[in-house]
C-alpha cells in the first residue's frame, strides 16, 4: 500500500470542499485548482495549496487535462481526485494522470470507457446477469420480427425510431391489438422525419422509480455494495431530493439488487466507488440504466446510514489498501434525506440565479449536515452548475429525517440570490412525498414545470417587515450617508437606491 502525501482536487464548489475535508481527516495535504471566476471560492480558502488553471469557462480551466496534470506535478502531488462532473468520467484524464506517474482516485480508464458507452455498458451488465429493460438491441428487420419481439418483450412497450430524437417516430403501445398500426405509424413518421424508417422496441416502464446501488470495488475482483439510494425526485432528469433507504424496497429486493450489483462490479474488476442506476417498476422489478464511475453528488445519504466515509474509502482503495470493509461489516441504520440547494428560481422554470450572497446562515444542530461551497460575500459564478449546498439530515425513521430537513431548511438563510429552498419545503409537505409514493415523473406531475411559490401565511407581516426595513434604511440615510453606506456593508443600500429614484418622480 502506498502512502499519499498530497492530493490534487480537480474540481470546484462543494465537492472540492468535501474532498479537502477528507484529505484533512487523513492528514493529507489538499491542493485546490481554480479558474479566474473562483479566485475567492471556498475550496481555495480551505485547501492547503491552490493553483490557477485558467480563465472562467470550464473548457479553458477545469476541463484542461494538460493544465491539471501539469499542476499536479508542479505541486508535488501523488494522486488526483476528480470529484464528480468535469473530468470525473473522462477516460483520457484518468490515463493522462496515470501516465504522469500519479494515482487517479477512481476506476481504470478501461472501466470508465466501457461504462461511458451506454450500449456496451448495457451489454456488459446483461452478460454479468444484471437485468436491463427488455427490448431489441438492434432495429427490427421486418413486421414479423417486430411482432415476435413485441410478444417477447410484453406490453406496454415503446416503439422508438433508430435515427430518432425529440419524440418523433416514437409510439407508446398499451395492448397487443394496437401494435401493428402503431408500428406502421411510427415507421412512416420516422421515414418522413429522418429519411430512415427503422425502429426498435423497448418495454415501457410506467411511473418508474430511480433507485441506485452504491458499490465499491478493490480492482481485483473484490466488491461490496453500500445499499441503495432513492433518487426519484427529479426535474428534467436532474436529481433534486435523494434518500436512503428507498421507501419502495423490501429487504429481499434490496438484497437482490445489492447482490446483482456486487456480482457485476466484481466481474468487471472495478476499482473504487461507483453507482449502478436502476429503474424500479411498480411491480418491484428493477432494470439497469447506467453505471456512474465516480462519486455521486448524493453520497452523503449513504454516509449517514452506513457510517462510512466514501471519499476516505476512495482514497484508501486508490492507495492500494484494499476494501476497508467486508459486506458483513456494512449495515443501514435509520434514514437519511438530502436536498440540493440550487441558486435557481423554480417559478421561472428553475432558471439559474447566480449572484452575490449577501446574507448566509447555515443550519446546524442534531442530525443535520451542510455540504456547502459558498460563504457570505461570495458571488456564485455564472459559469458553472448552480449547486450551492447539499443539506442532508438523518433520523431513526424517515419521518424524523424529513422533519429535521424541514427544520434545517427553515433555518437556512441565503440572501441576495434566489434559491429552491421554498420549493423543497413545498415537496417535504406534500402528502404523496410524505407517503413515499414517488416516481421520476413526480415533480412534473405534482408541481408542473414552473412551480409558483406557495402562498405564505404571513403576507401582511412580510409586507410590514419590508416597510420597516425601508424605514430603517431611510432613517440611516437621513442621518448621514456615510453611516448608511456602512450599515449595508459598503454597498449602497438597495432601499436607499429605491428612495433616491423615487424622489425625482415624486
Amino acid at each position, binding site marked *: 500500500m502506498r502512502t499519499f502525501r498530497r492530493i490534487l482536487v480537480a474540481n470546484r464548489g462543494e465537492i472540492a470542499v468535501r474532498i479537502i475535508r477528507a484529505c484533512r481527516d487523513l492528514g493529507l495535504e489538499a491542493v485546490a485548482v481554480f479558474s479566474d471566476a473562483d479566485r475567492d471560492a471556498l475550496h481555495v480558502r480551505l485547501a492547503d495549496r491552490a493553483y490557477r488553471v485558467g480563465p472562467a469557462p470550464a473548457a479553458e480551466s477545469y476541463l484542461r487535462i494538460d493544465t491539471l496534470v501539469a499542476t499536479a506535478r508542479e505541486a508535488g502531488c501523488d494522486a488526483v481526485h476528480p470529484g464528480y462532473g468535469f473530468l470525473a468520467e473522462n477516460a483520457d484524464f484518468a490515463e493522462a494522470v496515470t501516465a504522469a506517474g500519479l494515482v487517479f482516485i477512481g476506476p481504470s480508464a478501461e472501466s470508465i470507457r466501457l461504462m461511458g458507452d451506454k450500449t456496451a455498458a448495457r451489454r456488459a451488465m446483461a452478460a454479468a446477469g444484471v437485468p436491463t429493460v427488455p427490448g431489441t438491441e438492434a432495429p427490427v428487420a421486418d413486421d414479423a420480427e417486430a411482432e415476435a419481439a413485441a410478444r417477447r418483450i410484453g406490453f406496454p412497450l415503446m416503439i422508438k425510431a433508430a435515427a430518432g430524437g425529440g419524440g418523433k417516430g416514437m409510439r407508446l403501445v398499451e395492448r397487443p391489438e394496437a401494435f401493428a398500426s402503431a408500428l406502421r405509424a411510427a415507421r412512416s413518421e420516422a421515414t418522413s422525419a429522418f429519411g430512415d424508417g427503422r425502429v426498435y422496441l423497448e418495454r415501457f416502464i410506467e411511473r418508474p422509480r430511480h433507485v441506485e446501488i452504491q458499490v465499491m470495488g478493490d480492482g481485483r475482483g473484490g466488491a461490496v455494495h453500500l445499499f441503495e439510494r432513492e433518487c426519484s425526485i427529479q426535474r428534467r432528469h436532474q436529481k433534486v431530493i435523494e434518500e436512503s433507504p428507498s421507501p419502495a424496497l423490501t429487504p429481499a429486493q434490496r438484497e437482490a439488487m445489492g447482490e446483482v450489483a456486487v456480482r457485476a462490479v466484481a466481474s468487471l474488476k472495478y476499482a473504487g466507488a461507483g453507482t449502478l442506476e436502476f429503474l424500479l417498476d411498480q411491480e418491484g422489478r428493477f432494470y439497469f440504466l447506467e453505471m456512474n464511475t465516480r462519486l455521486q453528488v448524493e453520497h452523503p445519504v449513504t454516509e449517514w446510514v452506513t457510517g462510512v466515509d466514501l471519499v476516505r474509502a476512495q482514497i484508501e482503495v486508490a492507495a492500494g489498501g484494499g476494501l476497508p470493509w467486508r459486506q458483513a461489516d456494512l449495515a443501514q441504520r435509520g434514514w437519511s434525506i438530502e436536498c440540493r440547494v440550487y441558486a435557481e428560481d423554480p417559478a421561472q422554470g428553475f432558471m439559474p440565479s447566480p449572484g452575490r450572497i449577501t446574507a448566509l446562515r447555515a443550519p446546524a444542530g442534531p442530525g443535520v449536515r451542510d455540504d456547502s461551497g459558498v460563504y457570505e460575500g461570495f458571488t456564485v459564478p455564472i459559469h458553472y452548475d448552480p449547486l450551492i449546498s447539499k443539506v442532508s439530515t438523518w433520523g431513526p425513521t424517515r419521518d424524523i429525517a424529513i422533519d429535521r430537513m424541514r427544520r434545517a431548511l427553515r433555518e437556512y438563510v441565503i440572501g441576495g440570490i434566489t434559491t429552491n429552498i421554498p420549493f423543497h419545503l413545498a415537496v417535504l409537505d406534500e402528502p404523496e412525498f410524505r407517503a413515499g409514493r414517488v416516481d421520476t415523473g413526480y415533480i412534473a406531475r405534482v408541481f408542473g414545470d414552473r412551480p409558483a411559490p406557495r402562498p405564505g401565511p*404571513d403576507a401582511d407581516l412580510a*409586507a*410590514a417587515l419590508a416597510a420597516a426595513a*425601508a*424605514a430603517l434604511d431611510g432613517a440611516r440615510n437621513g442621518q448621514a450617508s456615510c453611516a448608511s453606506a456602512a450599515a449595508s456593508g459598503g454597498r449602497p443600500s438597495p432601499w436607499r437606491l429605491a428612495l433616491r429614484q423615487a424622489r425625482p418622480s415624486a
Partner: protein
Amino acid sequence: MAFVVRFGGRALRLDATVRADGQATVRLTEGETRQALAFEVVRQGGLLAARLPDGRSVEAFVDRREGRVTVWLDGAVYDMELVDERWGARRRGGAASSEGPQTVRAPMPGKVVKLLVAVGDRVEAGQGVVVVEAMKMENELRAGSAGVVKALPAAEGSAVEAGAVLVVLE
C-alpha cells in the same frame, strides 16, 4: 416612508415609522381596509428580527432587486412588486410594456439549444420560444407578451452572451 406593493392580486399601501429604540409602526391600507401593525425590530446585517406584541418572534431577510421586494420569512418567500405610491405605475423592471417590438434575451452566457418558434409564428404571452443551456442546465425562455416572431438572431447551437437578443417579437 410610504410605498405600495402588489402581490397575489393585492395592492397594499405601506406607511412605516421606526423609533430609535426599534419600536416600529406600520399602517397597511388595502382599498377601504386599514390596519396597523406594531412590533419591535432590530436589523443585524441583512437580517431583520422582529418581536410582535403577542410574543411572536420572527426573522426575515428583506431584499430589493429590479423593482421587486422579496421577503424571506420562516421558510416562505414573499415576492412583491414595488410600486411608487403616488403614481401607481411601475417604477422600473417588471413586465415590459406591450407596445413596439419585444425581445427575449439570454439571461446569462450560454448556448442556444433549441428554437421553439420560426420567423412568422404567432406566439402567446408565456409561450416558450427558445431553450438556452446555461450553468449546466437547459432553460426554456418564454415570450413576455403575445406577438409575431420577426427575427431569430441566434442560431441553434450558437454561444450567446448575457443580454444577447434571441427572439424579436412584434
